[in-house]
């Protein structure tokens, strides 16, 4: 029963995506929506991304120093490990998990409210492909903005680590050497590629949950929660495959 339900849901998701991935009817309206979504989903998330990345960067640096660094380890290990964690996992995967909570619930509740207040029906009556009109700019907006958020997250994580160094947890020289040690540019690109896939998951899955809401405000809330849970789980699954694929 669960399997049939899941397959049916996945089929419904694919059908929705087929409708979403059609050319916009009016490019002028699409770009207007696209810019708005970049601002709502991307620019408005910069604050939380910077804040969390800064503190996580600082905490990782302190934890590594306290738990791993010893006289057997090179002094630059703290900087090196902090950079690798930020670059490989935190700034792409964990940050996207956080964004799934913020952006995912925002998307699901916005589209769900449009559904229950018949705004989607109004679009359909006008002869507009409502799925494409509402969802495509959201997917495009978040996918466009996510690489920028990843870069900001990496930079602010390292700024957080430097702040602990300035506070005397480790020396600034050791941290600098560690951060520069054996740097592989590919990791930055891999992180961005992962985040783009995650951005697609967050925006499309959350839109799916919002678009098919039936009922009232209670159901919008439920759809919002389901959107966050589903997106987070899919991000975690996708992370395993992508990490292996991009290694």
């Amino acid at each position, binding site marked *: 029963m669960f399997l049939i339900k899941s397959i049916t849901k996945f089929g419904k998701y694919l059908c929705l995506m087929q409708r979403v991935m059609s050319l916009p*009817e*009016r490019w*002028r*309206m699409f770009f207007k929506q696209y810019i708005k979504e970049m601002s709502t989903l991307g620019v408005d998330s910069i604050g939380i991304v910077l804040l969390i990345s800064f503190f996580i960067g600082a905490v990782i640096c302190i934890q590594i120093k306290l738990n791993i660094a010893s006289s057997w380890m090179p002094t630059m290990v703290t900087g090196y490990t902090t950079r690798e964690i930020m670059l490989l996992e935190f700034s792409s995967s964990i940050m996207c998990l956080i964004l799934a909570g913020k952006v995912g619930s925002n998307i699901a509740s916005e589209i769900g*409210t449009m559904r229950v*207040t*018949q*705004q989607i*029906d*109004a679009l*359909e*009556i*006008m*002869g*507009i492909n409502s799925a494409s009109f509402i969802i495509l700019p959201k997917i495009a907006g978040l996918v466009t903005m996510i690489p920028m958020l990843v870069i900001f997250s990496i930079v602010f994580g390292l700024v957080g680590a430097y702040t602990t160094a300035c506070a005397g947890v480790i020396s600034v020289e050791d941290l600098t050497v560690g951060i520069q040690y054996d740097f592989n540019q590919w990791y930055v690109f891999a992180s961005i590629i992962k985040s783009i896939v995650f951005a697609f998951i967050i925006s499309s899955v959350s839109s799916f949950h919002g678009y098919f809401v039936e009922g009232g405000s209670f159901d919008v809330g439920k759809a919002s929660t389901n959107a966050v849970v589903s997106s987070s789980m899919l991000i975690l699954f996708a992370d395993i495959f992508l990490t292996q694929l991009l290694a």
Partner: protein
Amino acid sequence: MIELVNLHKSFGDKEVLKGISTQFADGKTNLIIGQSGSGKTVLMKNIVGLFTPEQGQILYDGRDFVRMTQKERVMLRREMGMIFQAAALFDSMSVLENVMFPLDMFSDMNREDRIKRAKFCLERVNLKGAEEKFPGEISGGMQKRVAIARAIALNPKYLFCDEPNSGLDPKTSLVIDDLIHGITQEYNMTTIINTHDMNSVMGIGEHIIYIYEGELEWTGTKHDVMSSTNERLTSFIFASDMLRKVRDANK
């Protein structure tokens, strides 16, 4: 002209529409009346294509809506305007942007002309000066009027109204009824209104169909309502104490 032929619609085991056949006259205000749960909204949603009937035909000037290709449906929908029960205005847009929306999507006018047309429609519904307000900042009656302005922005051939008076006081309801009726005559549209408001029935009901438990029970005009001998219709119409007294006084 819109014609329904043997329309059936079910949800699971429950048959909501049981073979409805009727015609809606051109250039007239057609009313669908019936008790809550009788299938009025389902019927309207079938007519506008939000639901697909299991059986039957929905003919727009002889063209069957159910069997149209997606492209033909889209083209036909551009000739439709609809006013929803809750107005269904776009929250993120101002009143002017809401009215301009269909023009932005489908007209080739330049921006200046689109603004001019939107302002003209707002003036037509007596909403001059509310252009910059957002739907959340205006009353329910004003929202309905914005919805009417949006619906007529592209000069539609067909206008559909799903309980346009719900949640409004009697005075505002009359204003909305007069507006819809006036616009119908002005633009020679085929208007279909879903309602259980007796003021609307007696005021603007040029052609009325009464639905009872998913079946077409009675057809007539507002003048026929008072003299009808159909028991189900009279018990529905004269459920209001006041209307009963009016009828008795007329006798």
